[in-house]
């Protein structure tokens, strides 16, 4: 057991030592002598640092979450319609998808996993009361799609069990045999939850509101789409979506995802596809994961521009304010400075002292601002998510990592330097005799 008396003595000594250290550090204008002004400087620095932390973490959050989402999909190469911006992939299509896949697999750099897709829309009447809704439909290859991460299997079975016999037969023999339709679909968790659709339920999908081709489907399972571009959606075998949309003959697709065991092969395949030996060169482009990310970053870069504007203005206003307060304080310390000069302190040592004292007060504000910023980021991260509909699940708008902290530190330097330099410059120009004369008056 420790003796409480000794602990008290130890604490007392520590406080005394700290006080002595502070008194030694703050020789000229200790912050406790003018608490109001010191608080103002701390508030000014803290508010700038807080705003900088929030704005920088917003930019970083959007960047890292975008990258993480693309990483979760797990594709190394995206085959998309020629000349089309990858962000518009669902607005255009290409034909002869299987021929393109074959050409890629026959290339010197064949992919390890290939997942063709067709995105389209279908109509369903979930309640059977004539209230028709439009849902997004993804035609997928049941054998390969779940090797990628965009669709997460939640309940029931995946389409892997039933497969896509209609398309397999069509590829094999060129014959379209409607008796091979499985009629199995998976519905998104939003569609299942919002429209009360359960496993084993039968839903009728149609290609048009009135007329069009209809197919009776059984709900085999549910899934979540990590991109969640449109939440109410369904997955069905690619061949069956192509069939009911009358696109099987042309083997129409919207994209093909490729993955490689060896990442270098991905880059080599892209280069090869542009060299004139690729059969599908006129119809599709091969884009790397980095190409897609680069495009997404371009779209979100305006957030960075806006952040930079807000941070610049906030730091400018804080710097001006800190300069005013410190100018006043330093002028008031004229008598002390003159005394020190009179007893032999050099001008340089006093300037250094003033600079260090100001920096110390700013540092307190900087630390406080960073802590407040982290708290604000935590709060906004928890509460802004509900406003940001349509963002992928797990997409964090605010992220604080090493790069954000480093940038905050970099931004703190001009504030701290400014707050130290202004009084130091005033002090360096101060004439002891005039200061003393002023005080006597």
């Amino acid at each position, binding site marked *: 057991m420790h003796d409480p008396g000794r602990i008290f003595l130890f604490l007392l000594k520590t406080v005394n030592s700290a006080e002595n250290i502070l008194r030694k550090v703050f020789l000229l204008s200790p912050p406790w002598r003018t608490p109001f002004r010191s608080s103002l400087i701390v508030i000014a620095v803290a508010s700038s640092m807080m705003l900088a932390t929030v704005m920088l973490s917003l930019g970083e959050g959007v960047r890292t979450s975008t990258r993480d989402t693309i990483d979760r999909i797990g594709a190394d190469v995206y085959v998309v319609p*020629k*000349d089309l911006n990858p*962000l518009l992939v*669902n607005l255009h299509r290409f034909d002869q998808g299987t021929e393109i896949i074959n050409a890629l697999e026959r290339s010197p750099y064949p992919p390890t996993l290939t997942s063709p897709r067709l995105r389209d829309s279908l109509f369903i009447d979930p309640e059977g009361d004539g209230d028709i809704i439009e849902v997004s439909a993804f035609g997928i290859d049941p054998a390969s799609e779940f090797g990628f991460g965009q669709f997460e299997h939640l309940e029931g079975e995946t389409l892997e069990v039933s497969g896509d016999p209609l398309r397999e037969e069509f590829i094999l023999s060129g014959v379209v045999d409607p008796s091979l339709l499985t009629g199995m679909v998976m519905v998104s968790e939003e569609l299942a939850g919002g429209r009360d659709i359960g496993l084993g339920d039968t839903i009728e999908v149609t290609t048009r509101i009135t007329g069009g081709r209809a197919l009776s489907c059984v709900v085999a399972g549910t899934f979540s789409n990590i991109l969640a571009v449109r939440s109410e959606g369904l997955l069905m075998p690619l061949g069956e979506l192509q069939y009911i949309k009358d696109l099987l003959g042309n083997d129409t697709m919207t994209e093909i995802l490729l993955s490689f065991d060896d990442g270098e092969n991905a880059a080599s395949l892209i280069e090869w596809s542009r060299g004139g030996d690729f059969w599908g060169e006129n119809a599709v482009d091969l884009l790397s994961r980095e190409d897609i990310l680069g*495009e997404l970053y371009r779209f979100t870069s*305006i957030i960075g521009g806006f952040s930079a504007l807000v941070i610049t*203005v906030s730091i400018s206003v804080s710097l001006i304010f800190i300069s005013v307060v410190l*100018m*006043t304080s330093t002028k008031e310390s004229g008598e002390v400075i003159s005394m020190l000069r009179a007893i032999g302190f050099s001008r340089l040592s006093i300037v250094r002292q003033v600079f260090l004292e100001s920096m110390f007060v700013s540092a307190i504000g900087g630390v406080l601002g960073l802590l407040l910023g982290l708290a604000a980021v935590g709060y906004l991260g928890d509460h802004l998510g509900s*406003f940001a509909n349509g963002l992928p699940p797990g997409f964090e708008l605010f992220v604080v990592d090493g790069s954000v902290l480093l940038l905050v530190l970099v931004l703190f330097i001009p504030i701290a330097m400014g707050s130290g330099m202004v009084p130091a410059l005033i002090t360096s120009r101060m004439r002891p005799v005039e200061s003393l004369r002023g005080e006597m008056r």
Partner: protein
Amino acid sequence: MIPVKPHRRPGRTLLSVLSLAVSFGMLVSLISVSQGIEGAAEGKLGDQPRDMIISSQGIDPSIDHSHSRSEKLQDDGNFSASMPVLTLVGRLGFSSKASLSDPFIHPPERFSAPGDLRTETAGLVGLVPGMAEPFISEEDSLLIRNELFRYHDWFEEPEDPFHRSNYTTGFTGSMLIEDRMADRYHLEKGDPVFFIDRSGEVSASFRVIGTFGTSLMGDGLSSDLVGGIAIVHLGELQYLTGNHHGDMATAIYLDLEEDRKDRETQKEIAISLERQFPGLQVTSKEMRLYRLEDEIAVLSVFSVVVGAVTVVIGLFFLSSIMMMSVEERRREMMILRAIGISRRSIFMGVIAEALLVASIGSVLGLVPGFLGTGLLDSYMRSFYGVDIPFTEVSPPTIIISIALTLLCAFVFSIIPAVRAVSIGRLRDLA
């Protein structure tokens, strides 16, 4: 009132003014962005003869029998005009060497592409010229989706003969092309433009019959999405994109008869249309304006809040500096009270000094405000590649901003003023 002497501490006063000017400049810039976007969007909607839209819920064309349904709607007495529209993204090809004596194809069929063919993604619009004419405003502009098309030329064939012949004959091959795209490929009237199908093959050719202007600037983000826009007859676009099965369209635009434009009647008509077109969206101009306000509300509120917070911080700084000034003038305050100056005069003196600094700061802040507005406008135009006014500075907004800033300055200077009065109590002299 005691005399106002901001020049007593010129450096401090100058910096206070500067701080407020920067803050106020930010407020003006951010409000102008919010107003600019709102004004541009509402302006487009407000002037156009397009009262109602029946559209797909998603991006795919979902309206079947679009020609006949539009005609039927026009005959039911509620609408003075209706037009089906098909909008989608496709690929066009351009060649300087190709010169086709007969650029039309009856019916379209594949042929080999010219050697120097350059291809580009374009927004494609299909419409029936005769049905679209009533929707063209007095300024020769037509609003399709949210883009204003300003026409320099128009189609010669008002009907849609290719659709009328059940997609067998009458392919006009006429194309209106966006002027920036025409400039980029040096296209003139009569030059061919090729339609590239989903296999990457040329499947039809069109002849440029004229141009139109849009807000697209040919650079920035918008140019990455689509290189330009082209307009053709609806039936021809339907055929080339496989939407002729079922006569599919993306939307039907409707213009109400004059006596049907009151709010209640519009609501009734909208309900009736929703019954006629299950699974489709029916929106009125009023609903689109509401939706638009909803969409830009977050941006508006965010801009105004960030601007307002900056000004409040600036005013907080002013208040702090006034407080310091009052503390420094402790002796002066006491003497003023001793020689009979009333508390009210001292109070008003401090308030007046703060208001003077705030007024100068606000007025000077207009300079960085206008500068920031201009910079933001050009930054956003070049970023998005769209030539629309992203910012709008209106005199009433500026006057209201200055008035609010001065009101806040008054509120913020009450604390130093009260402090000045309490310092100057006669008993403190004793």
